[in-house]
């Protein structure tokens, strides 16, 4: 066990866990931030996607000991009132079905748009290919990303 001081969604958080604990489980079990989802545990499905310094990262494969001082953002901290342009676009296109993968999809999409404000279809495919949606909402996700890109 070791103590870690994490910067999560703009707040300082202290946790006492083993160093190998993936950030996913620190968020979900210790900080009650359950918007970040467990899907596969091997960084193949993208349900656990969060931002480290604004970049999309799979939290299920990131040990808490590797995070250090870096800023962590989860779906809960993406915007104050759920009004990030990507979240608004998701509502506009009524993207979700079951909804389980969508936090991860949104975190990947926001990271993409922050680096590439007007991605092409192929760039969207590349950035989003790590996020599985078992319900098959991909066409709507792509439309929502384009809407969000155009709204900036």
């Amino acid at each position: 066990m070791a103590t870690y001081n994490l910067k999560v969604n703009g707040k300082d958080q202290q946790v006492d866990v083993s160093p190998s604990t993936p950030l996913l489980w620190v968020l979900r079990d210790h900080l009650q931030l359950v918007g970040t989802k467990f899907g596969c545990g091997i960084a193949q499905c993208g349900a656990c996607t969060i931002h480290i310094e604004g970049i999309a990262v799979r939290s299920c494969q990131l040990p808490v000991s590797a995070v250090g001082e870096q800023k962590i953002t989860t779906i809960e901290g993406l915007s104050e009132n759920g009004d990030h342009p990507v979240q608004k676009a998701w509502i506009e296109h009524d993207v979700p079905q079951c909804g389980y993968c969508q936090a991860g999809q949104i975190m990947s999409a926001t990271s993409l748009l922050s680096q590439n404000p007007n991605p092409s279809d192929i760039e969207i495919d590349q950035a989003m290919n790590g996020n599985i949606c078992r319900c098959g909402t991909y066409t709507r996700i792509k439309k929502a990303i384009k809407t969000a890109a155009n709204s900036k």
Partner: protein
Amino acid sequence: MATVKTTLGRRSFFKSSVLAGGGMMLSFSWFAGCEIPNRKEAAIIEMPEEWFELNSYIKIGDNGVVTLFNPNPEFGQNVKTSMPMILADELDVDWKNVIVEQANFYPKRYDRQFTGGSQSIRQGWNILRTAGATAKRMLVTAAAQHWQVPVNEVTAKAGILYHTATNKEITYGEIASLAAIQPIPEEVELKEIKDFKIIGTSKKNVAGTAIVTGKPMFGIDYQAEGMLIAMIIHPPAFGMKLKKFDATKAKSMPGIKDVFKIDTLKSDYARNYFDTTTFTELITVVGNSTWEVMQAKKEVVVDWEQAPEHTFQMDARGDKIAVHVPAGLESTIVHQTKMNQFNKNPGRILRIDGDPEKAFKNAAKILERTYSAPFLAHNTMEPVNCFANVSAEKAELYGPIQAPEFIIGTLSERLKLPKEKIQINLARMGGGFGLRAYGHHMIEAAVISQEMKAPIKMVYTREDDMSYGIYRPSYTATYKAAMDENNNLIAFHVKAGGIPESPLFPNRFPAGAIDNYLAEAWEIPSNITIGAFRAPRSNFIAGAEQSFLDELAEELGKDPIEFRLDLLERAKNNPVGENNDYDPERYAGVIKLVKDKSDWDNNSDKSRGFSAYFCHNTYVAQVLDLEIKNDKPMVDNVYAAVDCGIVINKDAAKNMGEGAIVDGIGNSLYGEQVFKDGAPQKLNFDRYQLIRMSEAPKSIEVHFVENEHNPTGMGEPLFPPIFAAMANALYRATGQRHYQQPFIPKKKIIG
């Protein structure tokens, strides 16, 4: 205007004894399941000081805010929006004043709380309309009483009651207290279809905002005071069972509370159809946090042994039957050989029209093709999980479940608690696809909690989930068509079977359209557990049948669409047999619609596949266009035409259809679970390939036939036919027919 007796769905009118304060039914409202339809409205919806319950589905606040309860479990099919839309329309309220709440499992209050078979809307239709109309009638009666005017002079519109002669009006909220104490009318009038205001429009998913902001809503998100985390260890292969285990090291690891064996279903228990459970003896590891439990799980040393053949008792609608489970460690390669053998033997004849034997004997030409498909895992994105808190007096469960009514009795028997002492609360499910019709996880969680005397949340790893079973079965079907010397189709023969069930529907199209017809089925027993998977059986046989009809049309020199329309014309004008399980006119209707929308006649240069199917009460026809790029099929456009009667929530229905198409394309190309010596070989998404964004169609159009038939479901019917639309388009693109699913195995793993 239709008048219905309110005895239909009488349970709807059971009222709780506590009326005021909004406290009723909210005893388990841990994260307030309320969802406000539209974020913009959220700011202006103010909670009332007092709620008045009109019936189980509807309560109205003194300020006019209306809470509608969604009775059915939600797994992404959006019943949480569409079922309340039906209530709201008949109640005649403004959607922006509606709050939707997920009902928990409460069989005394709700008529049918089962999500499956694309039946929620179809079977909920009359119940919900009646519940809405009854509440409206009670409001009208109350207003008439209040104004001392005849009831038939009071009208209602969008939450306001009017008496035009005296120029009076009053809101639902103002009269709700008086309405709630009105007697339940014996019969009520339902709206005419033309008067629907909400049904047939597009309303946003009521859970949309909660989803995009990451609010807790799934079983796996549940937190409770003092809650422990539990995981299970199950045998690594079908046909294996626990011999012994050593948990000395695991128990000494940080955060671990206990490691022990559990028995879920006792050997003398007579199971119901939804009690499918693969392993009844499991090891459980219980601790403080998920990661600690995961680590300890790896350190449990287990000896497994082969399970002998055995039987269990099944309660088949009152009759107790013994179900035989064979011994042995099965492999995919052996399955394939066995299926080929069985398919050569005579099967059980399920339908025979005319004299197929003679027709085949006299045929000038015979086309024969065999199709097969592997086992599939459901792979819901949310792994199996359940929260349970079981004490000596009562049990509380919260988790993903499609069919709570089928697990409550099992829980009662296993926990030795009366059903009334067991509360099943309905979490939003991170996918279902049939898997969550089976409640073994609720039994497992409850037994662990009972043993630990503590609240626990049991969670499967992805590997536990993918290797647990309850798969879509593996199937094989052989189709044969006989043609005379003038190249006319004279006989049709389908023989289909699988492990462990046949996918055959003997009375479906093209039965009824061909004079000489034979349908035969066969089955091979197995110890691999199977269960409902999005459009059970149809999800294979549609693809086989529609691929064969495509090849047959080519053999007959006919356009694939005209060929189907000719057969349907025959079935309509002069049907063969009497039990034909489709309406040829509605079937032809979707084919004509998709022909028109895809501009079929002017696109013969494209690599496009056509397919159509009728299952789960809904008619579907599809056209799929693809191109081969870098040796991979890239789907450009999919056009779908659907006849599901009245469409409740148009854009949401389209979303369902799009999802089913993407799911079907993915499974047709990649989906398979493979076995070697009983062990599933694909345990996670590194080897079990699911469709990803770059492989999804560029565009999908879903069109609806407009009619006034009662609504039918959308969750399943668009899934089965797309397998053939894909295969038929691949043929146009490559010149090769595809008979074995998956069409593109990522890594051929032969067991």
